[in-house]
């Protein structure tokens, strides 16, 4: 495989590892504040790693939550904070934040990094009730607020609907293709008791009968509105060996951006998730692995079209062939490339992508229900996609 052009960060391969994961329950409704959810997940992740808050010296909260480092440090009593960054790429933030954590712990700037991800997507930031909710203000929105919002282009589903429509126009992708992704994710969620859609089977006919929200996207193409948080602890590979659980080394990680990065409608090619397309060669190059080495993929899926376009951008299929690729059960458990094996944002919960990281770690640690376990899972790929086709890619391995 041709190596990526540009910077070479292969020294970072495997130098950092995920050593702790934690979560709150994923619910529709909570009495807790977003900060309380993050703290609960953080304590769970630290317990999983066998670390205490006193061991943490790097903190990266997720921008979309509105939680800030200072609040986490104050509550957790972190006294020697040495590294604190905030990533501003919306849904693409989580894996980029992990990239930052890798740099911090592999370089020696910090020892142990804590990332918290999640929000009250049902109880506060509920998109379907935008008029009643309070969204976190994002600087990236200024241009769209001025030039797109006055025409009723106000939320993510509308932005991605135009990308999906153009994809259908150029490549013959159909709503049934989106439905196949939704159905595969729902089937996985029905094997996952943590999933909000556990116990709620869904067929392609159900998908096709679900109401159009923003044509061509139907209700069952959209991610869930849920409350919950996840947390991740990252340390250097050397320290990881002394901790409680089997470490999950980060073999490859990279981020990429769209051009221009301010609106999907202005992209040279809105049918492509450019950030992922640019990041993938660097992540694969760092890992030394190829597409065929990947045992499962946890792909950020704000909408089903994003999953389809991500498969193309990552190089699992050619541009425009994402529709045919998801046919025939290829992305289901037991298929050639199981995707979103916990149900994804469309059927497990929308935890700003944190749940995708947790699922990859659990698959590699053999911590999922037996019927959901990808056989002999040695590698897992995780993406995040956010803002306007920004993207980041991470490749994890079983130690």
């Amino acid at each position: 495989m041709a190596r990526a052009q540009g910077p070479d960060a292969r020294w970072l391969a495997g130098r950092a590892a995920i050593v702790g994961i934690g979560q709150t329950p994923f619910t529709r409704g909570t009495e807790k504040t977003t900060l309380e959810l993050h703290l609960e997940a953080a304590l769970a992740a630290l317990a999983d790693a066998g670390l205490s808050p006193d061991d943490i010296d790097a903190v990266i909260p997720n921008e979309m939550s509105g939680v800030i480092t200072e609040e986490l440090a104050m509550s957790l009593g972190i006294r020697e904070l040495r590294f604190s960054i905030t990533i501003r790429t919306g849904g693409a933030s989580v894996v980029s934040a992990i990239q930052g954590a890798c740099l911090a712990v592999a370089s020696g700037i910090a020892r142990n990094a804590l990332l918290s991800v999640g929000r009250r997507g049902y109880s506060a930031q509920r998109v379907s009730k935008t008029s009643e909710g309070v969204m976190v203000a994002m600087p990236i929105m200024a241009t769209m607020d001025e030039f797109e919002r006055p025409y009723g282009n106000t939320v993510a589903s509308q932005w991605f609907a135009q990308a999906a429509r153009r994809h259908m126009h150029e490549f013959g992708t159909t709503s049934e293709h989106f439905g196949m992704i939704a159905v595969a994710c729902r089937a996985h969620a029905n094997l996952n008791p943590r999933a909000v859609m556990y116990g709620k089977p869904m067929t392609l006919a159900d998908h096709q009968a679900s109401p159009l929200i923003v044509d061509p996207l139907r209700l069952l193409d959209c991610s869930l509105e849920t409350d919950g948080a996840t947390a991740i602890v990252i340390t250097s590979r050397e320290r990881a060996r002394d901790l409680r659980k089997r470490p999950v080394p980060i073999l490859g990680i990279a981020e990429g951006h769209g051009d221009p990065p301010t609106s999907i409608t202005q992209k040279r090619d809105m049918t492509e998730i450019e950030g992922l397309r640019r990041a993938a060669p660097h992540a694969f190059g760092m890992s030394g692995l190829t597409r065929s080495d990947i045992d499962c993929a946890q792909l950020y899926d704000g909408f089903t079209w994003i999953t389809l376009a991500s498969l193309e951008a990552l190089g699992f299929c050619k541009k425009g062939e994402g529709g045919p690729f998801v046919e025939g059960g290829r992305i289901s458990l037991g298929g050639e490339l199981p995707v979103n094996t916990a149900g994804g944002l469309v059927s497990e919960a929308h935890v700003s992508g944190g749940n995708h990281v947790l699922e990859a770690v659990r698959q590699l640690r053999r911590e999922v229900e037996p019927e959901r376990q990808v056989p002999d899972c040695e590698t897992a790929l995780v993406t995040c996609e956010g803002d306007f086709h920004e993207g980041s890619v991470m490749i994890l391995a079983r130690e």
Partner: protein
Amino acid sequence: VPDVSRPLPQPTTRTAPFWEAAKRHELVIQRCSQCRAYRHYPQPMCPQCRSLEHEWARASGRGTIYSYTIAHRAFHPWWKDRVPYPIVTVELDEGVRMVCDLPGVAASEVAIGRRVEVCFEDVDERIALPRWRLV
């Protein structure tokens, strides 16, 4: 407290010429004074040649639908009784893209590739919105 009023642009010093022209029912876009490339949305520097010099060029006001969606659900109270409505990305003949709606146009008439032309709505003393119609 939810803001139910119509979301309108808040012009800045960078974007004011666009909105001032709209009040005169003229569609203008930035054009680099050095390399002559058109650009939109307004920004201080030409991403092609990095010149800070630009002029505001009058656009033809004609373009082609590049993509669209039909919003069947309102995500802002102002559109609550206005669904379904189209949201369209127009590629101007000058090559730049704009987002707009198509007032009075039925969803079934909207298609990629259809030709459109600009029209203006005088919203209030401060703002006129460029909107578009099928040709």
